[in-house]
Protein backbone atom coordinates (compact mmCIF):
# COMPACT_ATOMS: atom_id res chain seq x y z
CA UNK A 1 0.00 0.00 0.00
CA UNK A 2 1.11 3.53 -0.64
CA UNK A 3 2.62 4.93 2.57
CA UNK A 4 0.48 8.08 2.30
CA UNK A 5 -2.71 6.00 2.61
CA UNK A 6 -1.74 4.95 6.13
CA UNK A 7 -0.83 8.45 7.15
CA UNK A 8 -4.17 10.23 7.74
CA UNK A 9 -2.93 13.77 8.28
CA UNK A 10 -0.61 13.56 5.31
CA UNK A 11 -3.41 12.23 3.16
CA UNK A 12 -5.76 15.04 4.28
CA UNK A 13 -3.17 17.70 3.49
CA UNK A 14 -2.53 16.09 0.12
CA UNK A 15 -6.24 16.04 -0.80
CA UNK A 16 -6.66 19.61 0.40
CA UNK A 17 -3.80 20.62 -1.90
CA UNK A 18 -5.54 19.01 -4.83
CA UNK A 19 -8.87 20.70 -3.97
CA UNK A 20 -7.05 24.02 -4.11
CA UNK A 21 -5.84 23.03 -7.56
CA UNK A 22 -9.44 22.11 -8.43
CA UNK A 23 -10.66 25.50 -7.22
CA UNK A 24 -7.97 27.27 -9.21
CA UNK A 25 -9.08 25.33 -12.28
CA UNK A 26 -12.68 26.34 -11.57
CA UNK A 27 -11.60 29.99 -11.29
CA UNK A 28 -10.13 29.72 -14.79
CA UNK A 29 -13.13 27.83 -16.18
CA UNK A 30 -15.95 30.01 -14.82
CA UNK A 31 -15.26 32.99 -17.14
CA UNK A 32 -13.97 30.77 -19.99
CA UNK A 33 -17.09 28.63 -20.38
CA UNK A 34 -19.55 31.23 -19.02
CA UNK A 35 -20.76 28.90 -16.30
CA UNK A 36 -21.58 29.45 -12.62
CA UNK A 37 -19.27 28.58 -9.71
CA UNK A 38 -21.66 25.91 -8.46
CA UNK A 39 -21.64 23.81 -11.64
CA UNK A 40 -17.96 24.33 -12.24
CA UNK A 41 -16.98 23.24 -8.76
CA UNK A 42 -19.31 20.27 -9.03
CA UNK A 43 -17.14 19.20 -11.96
CA UNK A 44 -13.67 20.31 -10.79
CA UNK A 45 -13.56 19.07 -7.18
CA UNK A 46 -14.45 15.41 -7.86
CA UNK A 47 -12.04 15.37 -10.81
CA UNK A 48 -9.31 16.89 -8.60
CA UNK A 49 -9.96 14.22 -5.95
CA UNK A 50 -9.77 11.47 -8.53
CA UNK A 51 -6.55 12.93 -9.92
CA UNK A 52 -5.12 13.06 -6.42
CA UNK A 53 -5.76 9.35 -5.92
CA UNK A 54 -4.59 8.44 -9.41
CA UNK A 55 -1.34 10.41 -8.85
CA UNK A 56 -0.47 7.92 -6.09
CA UNK A 57 -0.67 4.98 -8.50
CA UNK A 58 2.79 5.50 -10.10
CA UNK A 59 4.21 4.51 -6.70
CA UNK A 60 3.56 0.85 -7.55
CA UNK A 61 5.21 1.17 -10.93
CA UNK A 62 8.22 2.92 -9.38
CA UNK A 63 8.59 0.28 -6.71
CA UNK A 64 8.30 -2.71 -9.02
CA UNK A 65 10.54 -1.20 -11.74
CA UNK A 66 13.04 1.13 -10.06
CA UNK A 67 15.16 3.40 -12.26
CA UNK A 68 18.36 1.39 -12.61
CA UNK A 69 21.28 2.57 -14.74
CA UNK A 70 21.14 -0.64 -16.80
CA UNK A 71 17.45 -0.45 -17.77
CA UNK A 72 16.51 3.18 -17.36
CA UNK A 73 15.10 3.60 -20.90
CA UNK A 74 12.56 0.82 -20.56
CA UNK A 75 11.72 1.96 -17.02
CA UNK A 76 11.18 5.50 -18.25
CA UNK A 77 9.01 4.30 -21.15
CA UNK A 78 6.96 2.25 -18.72
CA UNK A 79 6.38 5.34 -16.58
CA UNK A 80 5.33 7.37 -19.60
CA UNK A 81 2.93 4.64 -20.78
CA UNK A 82 1.45 4.30 -17.31
CA UNK A 83 1.02 8.08 -17.08
CA UNK A 84 -0.80 8.22 -20.45
CA UNK A 85 -3.07 5.31 -19.59
CA UNK A 86 -3.89 6.87 -16.23
CA UNK A 87 -4.51 10.26 -17.87
CA UNK A 88 -6.91 8.73 -20.39
CA UNK A 89 -8.73 6.80 -17.66
CA UNK A 90 -9.07 9.85 -15.41
CA UNK A 91 -10.17 12.04 -18.32
CA UNK A 92 -12.69 9.34 -19.33
CA UNK A 93 -14.03 9.24 -15.78
CA UNK A 94 -14.20 13.05 -15.79
CA UNK A 95 -16.19 12.96 -19.05
CA UNK A 96 -18.58 10.44 -17.55
CA UNK A 97 -18.98 12.57 -14.46
CA UNK A 98 -19.52 15.62 -16.64
CA UNK A 99 -22.26 13.70 -18.43
CA UNK A 100 -24.27 13.53 -15.19
CA UNK A 101 -25.14 17.13 -16.09
CA UNK A 102 -27.49 15.66 -18.72
CA UNK A 103 -29.75 14.63 -15.88
CA UNK A 104 -30.18 18.30 -15.06
CA UNK A 105 -31.04 19.24 -18.59
CA UNK A 106 -27.59 20.66 -19.33
CA UNK A 107 -25.07 19.67 -22.00
CA UNK A 108 -22.84 18.67 -19.09
CA UNK A 109 -21.80 20.00 -15.71
CA UNK A 110 -19.58 22.32 -17.73
CA UNK A 111 -19.62 22.69 -21.47
CA UNK A 112 -16.05 21.99 -22.58
CA UNK A 113 -14.87 22.12 -26.18
CA UNK A 114 -13.08 18.94 -27.48
CA UNK A 115 -9.74 20.77 -27.48
CA UNK A 116 -10.12 21.32 -23.74
CA UNK A 117 -10.53 17.56 -23.22
CA UNK A 118 -7.28 16.95 -25.13
CA UNK A 119 -5.61 19.59 -22.98
CA UNK A 120 -6.93 17.84 -19.88
CA UNK A 121 -5.45 14.50 -20.99
CA UNK A 122 -2.07 16.14 -21.69
CA UNK A 123 -2.06 17.99 -18.36
CA UNK A 124 -2.98 14.82 -16.46
CA UNK A 125 -0.27 12.82 -18.27
CA UNK A 126 2.25 15.47 -17.27
CA UNK A 127 1.06 15.37 -13.64
CA UNK A 128 1.39 11.58 -13.53
CA UNK A 129 4.87 11.63 -15.09
CA UNK A 130 5.96 14.20 -12.49
CA UNK A 131 4.36 12.10 -9.78
CA UNK A 132 6.32 9.05 -10.96
CA UNK A 133 9.59 10.98 -10.87
CA UNK A 134 8.80 12.36 -7.40
CA UNK A 135 8.13 8.82 -6.22
CA UNK A 136 11.42 7.66 -7.72
CA UNK A 137 13.27 10.38 -5.82
CA UNK A 138 11.49 9.54 -2.56
CA UNK A 139 12.16 5.82 -2.96
CA UNK A 140 15.85 6.42 -3.71
CA UNK A 141 16.10 8.60 -0.62
CA UNK A 142 14.43 5.94 1.47
CA UNK A 143 16.75 3.28 0.11
CA UNK A 144 19.78 5.38 1.02
CA UNK A 145 18.49 5.89 4.52
CA UNK A 146 17.79 2.20 4.98
CA UNK A 147 21.25 1.30 3.75
CA UNK A 148 22.80 3.75 6.20
CA UNK A 149 20.74 2.36 9.06
CA UNK A 150 21.65 -1.16 8.11
CA UNK A 151 25.30 -0.23 8.05
CA UNK A 152 25.08 1.49 11.44
CA UNK A 153 23.39 -1.58 12.90
CA UNK A 154 26.03 -3.84 11.38
CA UNK A 155 28.78 -1.67 12.84
CA UNK A 156 27.20 -1.74 16.27
CA UNK A 157 26.80 -5.48 16.08
CA UNK A 158 30.42 -5.97 15.03
CA UNK A 159 31.59 -3.76 17.90
CA UNK A 160 29.50 -5.73 20.34
CA UNK A 161 31.00 -9.00 19.12
CA UNK A 162 34.45 -7.52 19.46
CA UNK A 163 33.80 -6.38 23.02
CA UNK A 164 32.34 -9.72 23.87
CA UNK A 165 35.40 -11.48 22.51
CA UNK A 166 37.63 -9.16 24.54
CA UNK A 167 35.87 -9.69 27.79
CA UNK A 168 35.49 -13.41 27.39
CA UNK A 169 39.24 -13.72 27.15
CA UNK A 170 40.47 -15.43 30.24
CA UNK A 171 43.44 -13.65 31.72
CA UNK A 172 46.15 -16.23 30.98
CA UNK A 173 48.33 -14.86 33.74
CA UNK A 174 45.60 -15.65 36.25
CA UNK A 175 45.06 -19.13 34.86
CA UNK A 176 48.72 -20.19 34.81
CA UNK A 177 49.48 -18.70 38.21
CA UNK A 178 46.51 -20.55 39.66
CA UNK A 179 47.68 -23.80 38.11
CA UNK A 180 51.11 -23.19 39.60
CA UNK A 181 49.54 -22.67 43.03
CA UNK A 182 47.65 -25.93 42.66
CA UNK A 183 50.87 -27.65 41.66
CA UNK A 184 52.47 -26.35 44.88
CA UNK A 185 49.50 -27.34 47.01
CA UNK A 186 49.37 -30.96 45.78
CA UNK A 187 52.40 -31.62 47.98
CA UNK A 188 51.78 -29.15 50.80
CA UNK A 189 48.05 -29.53 51.28
CA UNK A 190 46.29 -31.96 48.93
CA UNK A 191 42.83 -31.05 50.23
CA UNK A 192 43.44 -27.37 49.49
CA UNK A 193 44.73 -28.31 46.04
CA UNK A 194 41.49 -30.12 45.35
CA UNK A 195 39.39 -27.23 46.68
CA UNK A 196 41.29 -24.75 44.53
CA UNK A 197 40.84 -26.93 41.43
CA UNK A 198 37.10 -26.87 42.08
CA UNK A 199 37.08 -23.10 42.65
CA UNK A 200 38.91 -22.59 39.41
CA UNK A 201 36.60 -24.93 37.50
CA UNK A 202 33.52 -23.18 38.86
CA UNK A 203 34.89 -19.78 38.07
CA UNK A 204 35.59 -20.71 34.46
CA UNK A 205 32.36 -22.61 34.07
CA UNK A 206 30.38 -19.62 35.23
CA UNK A 207 32.25 -17.13 33.10
CA UNK A 208 31.70 -19.41 30.10
CA UNK A 209 27.99 -19.61 30.94
CA UNK A 210 27.62 -15.83 30.89
CA UNK A 211 29.39 -15.69 27.56
CA UNK A 212 26.97 -14.52 24.91
CA UNK A 213 24.33 -13.43 27.41
CA UNK A 214 23.04 -9.91 27.17
CA UNK A 215 22.11 -9.50 30.80
CA UNK A 216 22.56 -11.45 34.00
CA UNK A 217 21.29 -10.94 37.52
CA UNK A 218 23.64 -8.90 39.66
CA UNK A 219 23.56 -11.86 42.00
CA UNK A 220 25.30 -14.03 39.41
CA UNK A 221 27.90 -11.37 38.82
CA UNK A 222 28.57 -11.13 42.57
CA UNK A 223 28.96 -14.91 42.68
CA UNK A 224 31.55 -14.72 39.92
CA UNK A 225 33.41 -12.05 41.90
CA UNK A 226 33.31 -14.21 45.03
CA UNK A 227 34.70 -17.22 43.18
CA UNK A 228 37.43 -15.12 41.68
CA UNK A 229 38.39 -13.70 45.07
CA UNK A 230 38.31 -17.18 46.64
CA UNK A 231 40.99 -18.29 44.18
CA UNK A 232 43.10 -15.20 44.71
CA UNK A 233 42.77 -15.68 48.48
CA UNK A 234 44.36 -19.09 48.21
CA UNK A 235 47.27 -17.51 46.40
CA UNK A 236 47.65 -14.37 48.50
CA UNK A 237 46.56 -15.69 51.88
CA UNK A 238 44.88 -13.46 54.49
CA UNK A 239 46.16 -10.38 52.69
CA UNK A 240 42.98 -10.24 50.68
CA UNK A 241 39.40 -9.90 51.86
CA UNK A 242 36.13 -9.01 50.19
CA UNK A 243 33.03 -7.24 51.51
CA UNK A 244 29.88 -7.21 49.38
CA UNK A 245 26.94 -4.95 50.23
CA UNK A 246 23.83 -5.49 48.16
CA UNK A 247 20.24 -6.02 49.23
CA UNK A 248 17.94 -8.60 47.69
CA UNK A 249 16.31 -6.11 45.31
CA UNK A 250 19.67 -5.03 43.92
CA UNK A 251 20.79 -8.63 43.58
CA UNK A 252 17.78 -9.30 41.37
CA UNK A 253 18.56 -6.34 39.08
CA UNK A 254 19.87 -7.08 35.60
CA UNK A 255 23.32 -5.97 34.47
CA UNK A 256 25.56 -6.69 31.49
CA UNK A 257 27.79 -9.66 32.38
CA UNK A 258 31.29 -8.99 33.72
CA UNK A 259 30.49 -5.50 34.90
CA UNK A 260 32.14 -6.06 38.31
CA UNK A 261 34.58 -8.95 38.02
CA UNK A 262 37.17 -7.15 35.87
CA UNK A 263 37.09 -4.22 38.31
CA UNK A 264 37.72 -6.54 41.24
CA UNK A 265 40.49 -8.22 39.27
CA UNK A 266 42.12 -4.80 38.81
CA UNK A 267 41.63 -4.05 42.49
CA UNK A 268 43.57 -7.20 43.35
CA UNK A 269 46.28 -6.76 40.73
CA UNK A 270 46.97 -3.06 41.05
CA UNK A 271 45.81 -2.54 44.62
CA UNK A 272 45.79 -5.16 47.34
CA UNK A 273 48.47 -7.39 45.85
CA UNK A 274 51.03 -4.58 46.03
CA UNK A 275 50.38 -3.79 49.69
CA UNK A 276 52.47 -5.58 52.31
CA UNK A 277 49.62 -5.44 54.78
CA UNK A 278 47.03 -6.39 52.15
CA UNK A 279 43.54 -4.95 52.28
CA UNK A 280 39.83 -5.28 51.76
CA UNK A 281 37.99 -4.86 48.49
CA UNK A 282 34.53 -3.38 48.90
CA UNK A 283 31.72 -3.96 46.44
CA UNK A 284 28.48 -2.09 46.93
CA UNK A 285 25.25 -1.99 44.96
CA UNK A 286 22.32 0.29 45.66
CA UNK A 287 19.28 1.62 43.92
CA UNK A 288 18.96 5.35 43.34
CA UNK A 289 15.54 6.00 41.77
CA UNK A 290 15.60 4.62 38.25
CA UNK A 291 19.28 3.82 38.39
CA UNK A 292 21.51 1.11 39.77
CA UNK A 293 24.72 2.38 41.34
CA UNK A 294 27.71 0.10 41.74
CA UNK A 295 30.91 0.85 43.57
CA UNK A 296 34.19 -1.08 43.78
CA UNK A 297 36.89 0.33 45.99
CA UNK A 298 40.24 -0.88 47.24
CA UNK A 299 43.26 0.43 49.10
CA UNK A 300 46.31 1.38 47.03
CA UNK A 301 49.91 2.29 47.71
CA UNK A 302 50.17 5.98 48.48
CA UNK A 303 53.02 6.36 45.97
CA UNK A 304 51.52 4.12 43.29
CA UNK A 305 51.89 5.43 39.76
CA UNK A 306 48.85 7.46 38.88
CA UNK A 307 48.69 6.97 35.18
CA UNK A 308 48.38 3.14 34.89
CA UNK A 309 47.28 3.26 31.28
CA UNK A 310 46.23 -0.39 31.29
CA UNK A 311 43.58 0.40 33.84
CA UNK A 312 42.40 3.40 31.84
CA UNK A 313 41.91 1.16 28.86
CA UNK A 314 39.94 -1.35 30.89
CA UNK A 315 37.60 1.38 32.09
CA UNK A 316 37.17 2.72 28.57
CA UNK A 317 36.25 -0.76 27.44
CA UNK A 318 33.73 -1.03 30.25
CA UNK A 319 32.18 2.33 29.37
CA UNK A 320 31.92 1.24 25.74
CA UNK A 321 30.29 -2.04 26.69
CA UNK A 322 27.77 -0.25 28.86
CA UNK A 323 27.02 2.16 26.01
CA UNK A 324 26.32 -0.74 23.68
CA UNK A 325 24.24 -2.62 26.25
CA UNK A 326 22.19 0.14 27.85
CA UNK A 327 19.44 2.12 26.18
CA UNK A 328 19.95 5.02 28.57
CA UNK A 329 23.32 6.57 29.33
CA UNK A 330 25.63 4.74 31.74
CA UNK A 331 28.56 6.33 33.55
CA UNK A 332 31.88 5.03 34.78
CA UNK A 333 33.72 7.27 37.22
CA UNK A 334 37.08 6.91 38.89
CA UNK A 335 38.05 8.50 42.15
CA UNK A 336 41.58 8.40 43.45
CA UNK A 337 42.06 9.40 47.07
CA UNK A 338 45.41 9.24 48.85
CA UNK A 339 45.17 5.55 49.71
CA UNK A 340 41.88 4.49 48.19
CA UNK A 341 40.89 3.80 44.62
CA UNK A 342 37.19 3.79 43.76
CA UNK A 343 35.28 3.05 40.57
CA UNK A 344 31.61 4.01 40.43
CA UNK A 345 29.19 2.80 37.79
CA UNK A 346 25.71 4.18 37.28
CA UNK A 347 23.39 2.37 34.89
CA UNK A 348 19.64 2.24 34.25
CA UNK A 349 17.75 0.08 36.74
CA UNK A 350 16.42 -3.05 35.07
CA UNK A 351 14.71 -6.12 36.37
Amino acid at each position, binding site marked *: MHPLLTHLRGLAAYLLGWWLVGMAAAAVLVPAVHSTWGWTLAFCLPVASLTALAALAPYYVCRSRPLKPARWISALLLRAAAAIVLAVLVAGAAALWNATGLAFGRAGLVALPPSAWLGLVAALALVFILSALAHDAALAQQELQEAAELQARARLHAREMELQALRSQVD*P*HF*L*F*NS*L*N*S*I*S*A*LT*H*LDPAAARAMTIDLAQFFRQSLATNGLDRIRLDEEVQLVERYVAIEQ*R*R*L*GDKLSLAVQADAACRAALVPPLVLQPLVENAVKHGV*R*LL*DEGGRIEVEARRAGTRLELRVSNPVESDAPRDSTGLGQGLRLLQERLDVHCSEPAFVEVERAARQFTVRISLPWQT
Partner: protein
Amino acid sequence: MADVSLRALIADDEPLARALVREYLASHPDIRVIAEAGTGLEAARCIQDAAPDLVFLDVQMPRLTGLEVLQMTGLRQGVIFTTAYDQHALDAFDLHAVDYLLKPFSQERFDAALERARRLLRSDLPGIERLLGAEPLKRVLVRDGAQMRVLPLEEVHYIQAQADQVAFHHDGRDYLKPERISDLEAQLDPRQFVRVHRSFIVNIAEIQSVERTESEAYALRLRSGKRIPVSRSGYERLRGVL
Protein backbone atom coordinates in the same frame (compact mmCIF):
# COMPACT_ATOMS: atom_id res chain seq x y z
CA MET B 1 79.62 -30.94 43.83
CA ALA B 2 78.02 -31.47 47.21
CA ASP B 3 80.94 -29.93 49.02
CA VAL B 4 80.32 -26.60 47.32
CA SER B 5 77.27 -25.14 48.95
CA LEU B 6 75.33 -22.67 46.80
CA ARG B 7 73.35 -19.88 48.43
CA ALA B 8 69.99 -19.22 46.80
CA LEU B 9 67.33 -16.53 46.89
CA ILE B 10 63.72 -17.23 45.92
CA ALA B 11 61.91 -14.13 44.70
CA ASP B 12 58.20 -14.45 43.97
CA ASP B 13 55.24 -12.53 45.31
CA GLU B 14 53.21 -15.69 45.86
CA PRO B 15 54.00 -17.78 48.94
CA LEU B 16 52.82 -20.95 47.19
CA ALA B 17 55.09 -20.35 44.24
CA ARG B 18 58.04 -19.92 46.61
CA ALA B 19 57.04 -23.09 48.44
CA LEU B 20 57.08 -24.99 45.17
CA VAL B 21 60.65 -23.91 44.40
CA ARG B 22 61.67 -24.95 47.91
CA GLU B 23 60.05 -28.32 47.39
CA TYR B 24 61.85 -28.88 44.09
CA LEU B 25 65.10 -27.78 45.74
CA ALA B 26 64.74 -30.51 48.38
CA SER B 27 66.43 -32.97 46.02
CA HIS B 28 69.42 -30.65 45.63
CA PRO B 29 71.09 -30.72 49.05
CA ASP B 30 73.99 -28.57 47.90
CA ILE B 31 71.70 -25.59 47.51
CA ARG B 32 70.79 -23.62 50.60
CA VAL B 33 67.97 -21.08 50.50
CA ILE B 34 69.25 -18.01 52.34
CA ALA B 35 66.22 -15.79 51.79
CA GLU B 36 62.81 -15.43 50.22
CA ALA B 37 61.55 -12.16 48.77
CA GLY B 38 57.92 -11.22 48.13
CA THR B 39 58.57 -8.03 46.18
CA GLY B 40 61.11 -6.88 43.65
CA LEU B 41 62.43 -4.33 46.11
CA GLU B 42 63.11 -6.98 48.75
CA ALA B 43 64.79 -9.12 46.11
CA ALA B 44 67.04 -6.24 45.04
CA ARG B 45 67.96 -5.48 48.65
CA CYS B 46 68.83 -9.11 49.29
CA ILE B 47 70.90 -9.37 46.12
CA GLN B 48 72.92 -6.30 47.12
CA ASP B 49 73.34 -7.28 50.75
CA ALA B 50 73.81 -11.03 50.58
CA ALA B 51 75.06 -11.59 47.01
CA PRO B 52 73.40 -15.01 46.51
CA ASP B 53 74.90 -17.47 44.02
CA LEU B 54 71.52 -18.39 42.57
CA VAL B 55 68.35 -16.35 42.24
CA PHE B 56 64.97 -17.80 41.31
CA LEU B 57 63.38 -14.67 39.96
CA ASP B 58 59.72 -14.19 39.07
CA VAL B 59 59.43 -11.85 36.13
CA GLN B 60 56.18 -10.16 37.26
CA MET B 61 56.52 -8.93 40.79
CA PRO B 62 54.96 -5.90 42.46
CA ARG B 63 57.07 -2.77 43.03
CA LEU B 64 59.91 -3.89 40.77
CA THR B 65 59.71 -6.44 37.99
CA GLY B 66 62.28 -9.19 37.78
CA LEU B 67 64.04 -7.47 34.90
CA GLU B 68 64.18 -4.19 36.78
CA VAL B 69 65.75 -6.02 39.71
CA LEU B 70 68.56 -7.11 37.41
CA GLN B 71 68.89 -3.69 35.78
CA MET B 72 69.16 -2.05 39.15
CA THR B 73 71.41 -4.49 40.92
CA GLY B 74 73.68 -5.21 37.97
CA LEU B 75 73.27 -8.93 38.63
CA ARG B 76 74.00 -10.94 35.49
CA GLN B 77 74.88 -14.38 36.87
CA GLY B 78 73.08 -17.31 38.41
CA VAL B 79 69.57 -16.13 37.57
CA ILE B 80 66.75 -18.58 36.84
CA PHE B 81 63.66 -16.76 35.58
CA THR B 82 60.20 -18.02 36.37
CA THR B 83 57.05 -16.66 34.81
CA ALA B 84 53.41 -17.59 34.41
CA TYR B 85 52.54 -15.60 31.36
CA ASP B 86 53.65 -12.28 30.03
CA GLN B 87 53.74 -12.28 26.26
CA HIS B 88 55.87 -9.16 26.12
CA ALA B 89 58.52 -10.59 28.45
CA LEU B 90 58.45 -14.01 26.79
CA ASP B 91 59.02 -12.52 23.35
CA ALA B 92 62.02 -10.65 24.69
CA PHE B 93 63.38 -13.77 26.38
CA ASP B 94 62.99 -15.84 23.24
CA LEU B 95 64.55 -13.12 21.13
CA HIS B 96 67.69 -13.16 23.25
CA ALA B 97 67.66 -16.91 23.92
CA VAL B 98 67.46 -16.45 27.69
CA ASP B 99 66.24 -19.58 29.48
CA TYR B 100 63.16 -19.39 31.70
CA LEU B 101 60.77 -21.66 33.60
CA LEU B 102 57.12 -21.46 32.58
CA LYS B 103 54.71 -21.94 35.48
CA PRO B 104 53.57 -24.51 36.27
CA PHE B 105 56.80 -26.44 35.67
CA SER B 106 57.84 -30.01 36.49
CA GLN B 107 60.69 -31.19 38.68
CA GLU B 108 62.48 -32.42 35.53
CA ARG B 109 62.25 -29.07 33.82
CA PHE B 110 63.35 -27.38 37.03
CA ASP B 111 66.34 -29.71 37.35
CA ALA B 112 67.35 -29.04 33.76
CA ALA B 113 67.26 -25.26 34.30
CA LEU B 114 69.26 -25.69 37.49
CA GLU B 115 71.82 -27.85 35.69
CA ARG B 116 72.25 -25.18 33.06
CA ALA B 117 72.57 -22.49 35.74
CA ARG B 118 75.27 -24.52 37.52
CA ARG B 119 77.27 -24.83 34.34
CA LEU B 120 77.09 -21.08 33.79
CA LEU B 121 77.71 -20.21 37.42
CA ARG B 122 80.10 -17.27 37.80
CA SER B 123 79.78 -16.31 34.17
CA ASP B 124 77.22 -13.95 32.72
CA LEU B 125 74.03 -15.49 31.39
CA PRO B 126 74.07 -15.59 27.62
CA GLY B 127 71.81 -12.99 26.06
CA ILE B 128 71.10 -11.26 29.34
CA GLU B 129 72.95 -8.05 28.56
CA ARG B 130 71.08 -7.61 25.31
CA LEU B 131 67.79 -8.48 27.01
CA LEU B 132 68.28 -5.85 29.70
CA GLY B 133 69.75 -3.32 27.30
CA ALA B 134 66.75 -3.55 24.98
CA GLU B 135 64.70 -1.28 27.22
CA PRO B 136 66.03 1.89 28.74
CA LEU B 137 66.11 2.19 32.50
CA LYS B 138 62.98 3.80 33.95
CA ARG B 139 63.73 3.59 37.68
CA VAL B 140 66.81 3.19 39.81
CA LEU B 141 67.48 1.60 43.14
CA VAL B 142 69.38 3.88 45.52
CA ARG B 143 70.49 3.94 49.11
CA ASP B 144 68.51 6.15 51.47
CA GLY B 145 70.38 5.87 54.72
CA ALA B 146 70.05 2.24 55.77
CA GLN B 147 67.03 1.82 53.47
CA MET B 148 66.77 1.14 49.78
CA ARG B 149 64.55 3.32 47.66
CA VAL B 150 63.27 3.26 44.10
CA LEU B 151 63.54 6.54 42.24
CA PRO B 152 61.55 7.15 39.05
CA LEU B 153 64.14 8.51 36.63
CA GLU B 154 61.76 11.01 35.05
CA GLU B 155 61.72 12.82 38.40
CA VAL B 156 65.52 12.96 38.63
CA HIS B 157 66.84 16.43 37.70
CA TYR B 158 70.45 15.52 37.09
CA ILE B 159 73.04 12.90 37.89
CA GLN B 160 76.53 13.72 39.09
CA ALA B 161 79.60 11.49 39.29
CA GLN B 162 81.20 11.49 42.73
CA ALA B 163 84.40 9.43 42.99
CA ASP B 164 83.28 5.81 42.36
CA GLN B 165 79.58 6.59 42.87
CA VAL B 166 76.83 8.50 41.13
CA ALA B 167 74.47 10.88 42.88
CA PHE B 168 70.88 11.17 41.66
CA HIS B 169 69.46 14.59 42.41
CA HIS B 170 65.78 14.16 43.25
CA ASP B 171 63.45 16.46 45.11
CA GLY B 172 66.22 18.58 46.61
CA ARG B 173 68.29 15.60 47.81
CA ASP B 174 71.14 13.50 46.53
CA TYR B 175 70.86 9.72 46.51
CA LEU B 176 74.05 7.73 46.05
CA LYS B 177 74.59 4.55 44.14
CA PRO B 178 77.89 2.78 43.53
CA GLU B 179 78.16 2.82 39.74
CA ARG B 180 80.29 4.36 36.98
CA ILE B 181 78.61 7.27 35.27
CA SER B 182 79.47 5.91 31.80
CA ASP B 183 77.85 2.53 32.62
CA LEU B 184 74.75 4.34 33.79
CA GLU B 185 74.70 6.60 30.74
CA ALA B 186 74.53 3.54 28.46
CA GLN B 187 71.36 2.33 30.21
CA LEU B 188 69.46 5.61 30.11
CA ASP B 189 66.95 6.71 27.51
CA PRO B 190 69.00 8.96 25.20
CA ARG B 191 65.90 11.03 24.41
CA GLN B 192 65.52 11.90 28.08
CA PHE B 193 69.05 12.14 29.46
CA VAL B 194 72.16 13.76 27.98
CA ARG B 195 75.71 13.51 29.22
CA VAL B 196 76.68 17.17 29.10
CA HIS B 197 79.93 16.86 30.99
CA ARG B 198 82.44 14.27 32.21
CA SER B 199 80.68 14.35 35.58
CA PHE B 200 77.10 15.35 34.68
CA ILE B 201 74.03 13.82 33.04
CA VAL B 202 70.93 16.04 32.89
CA ASN B 203 67.25 15.36 32.43
CA ILE B 204 66.29 17.28 29.29
CA ALA B 205 62.86 18.11 30.71
CA GLU B 206 64.52 20.04 33.54
CA ILE B 207 66.62 22.36 31.35
CA GLN B 208 65.53 25.98 31.49
CA SER B 209 68.23 27.69 29.42
CA VAL B 210 71.69 27.32 27.95
CA GLU B 211 74.06 30.13 28.97
CA ARG B 212 77.43 31.26 27.72
CA THR B 213 80.15 31.86 30.27
CA GLU B 214 82.94 34.48 30.00
CA SER B 215 85.51 31.85 29.02
CA GLU B 216 83.71 30.91 25.76
CA ALA B 217 82.24 27.83 27.44
CA TYR B 218 78.61 26.90 28.06
CA ALA B 219 76.54 26.15 31.14
CA LEU B 220 73.00 24.94 31.73
CA ARG B 221 70.44 26.54 33.98
CA LEU B 222 67.91 24.05 35.34
CA ARG B 223 64.37 24.89 36.41
CA SER B 224 65.46 24.49 40.01
CA GLY B 225 68.04 27.29 39.43
CA LYS B 226 70.99 24.88 39.57
CA ARG B 227 73.87 25.68 37.17
CA ILE B 228 75.57 22.77 35.43
CA PRO B 229 78.82 23.03 33.43
CA VAL B 230 78.74 21.88 29.79
CA SER B 231 81.83 20.55 28.06
CA ARG B 232 82.57 21.09 24.35
CA SER B 233 81.53 17.55 23.39
CA GLY B 234 78.62 17.77 25.82
CA TYR B 235 77.43 20.86 23.99
CA GLU B 236 77.51 18.97 20.68
CA ARG B 237 75.49 16.11 22.17
CA LEU B 238 73.02 18.55 23.63
CA ARG B 239 72.57 20.30 20.28
CA GLY B 240 71.97 16.93 18.66
CA VAL B 241 69.09 16.19 21.02
CA LEU B 242 67.43 19.58 21.42
